[in-house]
C-alpha cells in the first residue's frame, strides 16, 4: 500500500504483494454533536465547521446523510467545497432505493445521480447498503440487478446484511460487473452476512467496521448498536489477517468506522492508520 502524498491517513501496505494498494481510512459520517462533547472536535464547534476540521485528520468520509434524504446537488456542492481538493467521498445510497423500496426506481436513481454529481472525480464509491430483511429471493435478485444497472458508470460497492447472499454466484456476478463487495466487521449473529475478505473488484475494496457489540446489535437502539471501542490488539489482528488479503487483490481500498458513539470511530480510525503506517 502506498500513502497518498496529501492525505493524513493514507497508509502503506504491510505486505509485499499489497504494496501497490492505496488505502484510505475514515469514518461513516462526520457531523456528530457527540464528537464535540467527546473532544474530537474542539468545544463550541458548529456543524457547519465540522468537515474542514475532520479533513485535518482524515482524507475520506462516508456520507450517510444521503441515506436519510435524497442527495441534492446544491447542498452537496456546498459541502464538498468545504473540504480540500484531495479529499474523497463515499456516498450512501438513499434509503428509498434500499430500505423502503416503493417503486419509482428509475426516477429515484436519476435524482440520486443528479444529487451526487458535484462530487465528480472525488466520489470514491456509492455504497448500496441493503437491509437485513433483503434476502436472496428471485424478486430481490431482479431488483438488485436493476438497481446496479441504474448505477452503471459509478464506482459502486454493495453491503449485504443477510447471510443468504454469501454465495459464490453472487460474488461472481459482482466481479463481472466490477462492483465491490463490502467487507464488514460486525458481531457474529446467525443470519448476519459474515465478515469475508472476498475482493470482487480489483479497482477497489471497501470495508466497514460496525463494532462488535452483540447485545447492542440485538437491542435495535442505534446508540447501543454502534457503541464499541476496538482495542489495539483487535485492530492489529485485523490488519495482519484481513487487510493483507484485501490489499493484495485491489489497487485501492477504503475503510470506514461506523462505531460513531462517543467518538470511538475517529479514535479507532486514527489507531488503524497508525498500525498500517507502522507496518509498511
Amino acid at each position, binding site marked *: 500500500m502506498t500513502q497518498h502524498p496529501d492525505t493524513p491517513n493514507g497508509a502503506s501496505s504491510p505486505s509485499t504483494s499489497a504494496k501497490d494498494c492505496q488505502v484510505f481510512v475514515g469514518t461513516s459520517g462526520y*457531523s456528530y454533536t457527540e464528537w464535540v462533547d467527546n473532544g474530537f472536535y474542539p468545544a463550541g464547534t458548529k*456543524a457547519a465547521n465540522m468537515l474542514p476540521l475532520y479533513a485535518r485528520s482524515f482524507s475520506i468520509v462516508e456520507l450517510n446523510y444521503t441515506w436519510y434524504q435524497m442527495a441534492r446537488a446544491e447542498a452537496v456542492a456546498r459541502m464538498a467545497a468545504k473540504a480540500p481538493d484531495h479529499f474523497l467521498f463515499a456516498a450512501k445510497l438513499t434509503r428509498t432505493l434500499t430500505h423502503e423500496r416503493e417503486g419509482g426506481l428509475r426516477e429515484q436513481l436519476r435524482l440520486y445521480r443528479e444529487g451526487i454529481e458535484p462530487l465528480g472525480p472525488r466520489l470514491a464509491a456509492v455504497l448500496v447498503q441493503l437491509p437485513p430483511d433483503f434476502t436472496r429471493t428471485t424478486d430481490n435478485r431482479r431488483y438488485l440487478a436493476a438497481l446496479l444497472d441504474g448505477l452503471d458508470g459509478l464506482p459502486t460497492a454493495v453491503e449485504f446484511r443477510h447471510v443468504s447472499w454469501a454465495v459464490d454466484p453472487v460474488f461472481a456476478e459482482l466481479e463481472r460487473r466490477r462492483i465491490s463487495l463490502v467487507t464488514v466487521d460486525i458481531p457474529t449473529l446467525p443470519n448476519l452476512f459474515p465478515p469475508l475478505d472476498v475482493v470482487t473488484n480489483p479497482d477497489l475494496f471497501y470495508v466497514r467496521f460496525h463494532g462488535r457489540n452483540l447485545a447492542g446489535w440485538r437491542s435495535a437502539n*442505534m446508540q447501543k448498536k454502534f457503541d464499541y471501542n476496538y482495542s489495539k490488539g483487535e485492530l492489529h489482528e485485523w490488519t495482519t489477517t484481513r487487510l493483507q488479503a484485501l490489499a493484495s487483490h485491489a489497487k485501492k481500498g477504503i475503510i470506514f468506522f461506523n462505531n460513531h458513539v462517543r467518538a470511538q470511530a475517529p479514535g479507532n480510525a486514527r489507531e488503524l492508520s497508525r498500525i498500517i503506517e507502522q507496518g509498511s
Partner: protein
Amino acid sequence: MTAMFRERAIIHFNVTDFAVSVERIVDNALRRRPVIIAPFQAARAVVYDMSEEAFGCGVHKGMPLSRATRLCPGATVLPPRPDIYRRAMRAFLGQVQSYSPRIEHGMVDGHIFVDVTGTHRLFGPAPDIGLRVRRQVRNGLGINPIWSLAGNKLVAKVASRLVKPTGEYIVGSGEEEEFLAPLPLPLLPGLSPEEVRRLRDFNLIRIGQLARLSRQQLMVPFGNRSDFLYAASRGIDSSPIAAGDSRAASLAFEHVFADDTNDEKELAGIAASLAAKAGRELRTRRQAARRVEIQIAYADGIRSAGRATSRRGTGSDFILRKLARQALQRALTRRIRVRNCRLFCSLLERESPQLPLFPEAAGPEIRQEKTCAALDSIRSRFGHAIIQSGRVQ
C-alpha cells in the same frame, strides 16, 4: 462547568390533510379516492379539509362546498369529526413524546415541532429520530408524516413545505440563508398577504432578494416589521419551542348556541359570561392575560375572529369583559346568525404580586378585585351559574 451555546436541532412533523388522513385510517375504502370534509348540513357549508386529489381538482380550504363538489364531482364528502382527529393527534403526540419533552403542536392540524437538541447521547443523531418517528407513526397509526430538520422552527417549517405531500428535508446548520434564497417569498412563514403584495410591488419575488436589503432599507416601507423581515429572510429565528399545545399558552372557553342567533345582546351576554369563566380560571392559576380573542362560527360554517389587547395583564372580570366586548364587535362582520362563540385569553403572564403604590388612586380597581374574590368564593361553593353579573342600562 461553563455554559456553552449549543446549536439547536428542531424537527417539524406534519401530516398533510390531517383530517382526511385520519378518515382514511377509519375507512380504508377512502384511500385513492378524492375526499372533501365539510359540514354539509349547513346551508352554506365551506370546505374544512380535502385530500390531495381534490386539491388537484382546484378545491381548497374555506371554499363553498357547492363550488368544491362542482370542481371535484367524484369526491366523497364527509362531515368533520373533530373528536377522532383529536384522538389521532394524541396518539401521534404519544410517539413523539418519547424522544423529547419539548414539543409544540397545534390542536388537530397534524403539525408538531420537537426540540431534540442534546438528545443525541440517548437517541443518536437527530435525522435518525425523524426517521424513526415517521416509521413508528406509519406502522402504528397508518399515517405518513413529512419531517424536516433544521436549526430553528422557521427554517424547519419552510423545509417541510417543500416536500409535500410526503418526504423529508434536512437543512444543514449554517446553510439556512442559502437554502431560503432561491425560494418564493410566500413560502416564508409569518408574512401577511399584504406584505407579500408590497414586496412584489418592490419587485421582490424570492427570499434571497429580500435578504439583500439592510435593516435601514426595510425600515422605510415596513416600519416595526423590518426586524422580522430582516431576520426571517436570513433564516434567523430564535423563538423557543413552546411546550405543549401552541394554544396552551392560552385559555379557551366555548359556547354553542342552542339556536343560531344574531341577537347582539345575546351574543354580548355570552361573551361576558365566557370572560367571567376565563377570569376565574386566570385567578385560580394566578395568571393575567393581555389579549382576549373571540372566534365566532356563523351558521354557514364561515369563521371570523376579533381581538382586543390591553397594555397590562389582567385577571379581572371587569377588564376581561370590556376586552371581550371589543373583540366581539371586531369579530361580528356579517349579519348571518352565529352558531358558536369561543373566547381565548392569550399573552399570559404571571399575576404581579406588586401592590399599588397609592391605594387611594387605585380605589376602583381594589373594589373590583374584592368583588371578583367574593364571586369566586360563592362560585367555588355553589357553581359558576349561581351568580351572574349584568349591565345596568
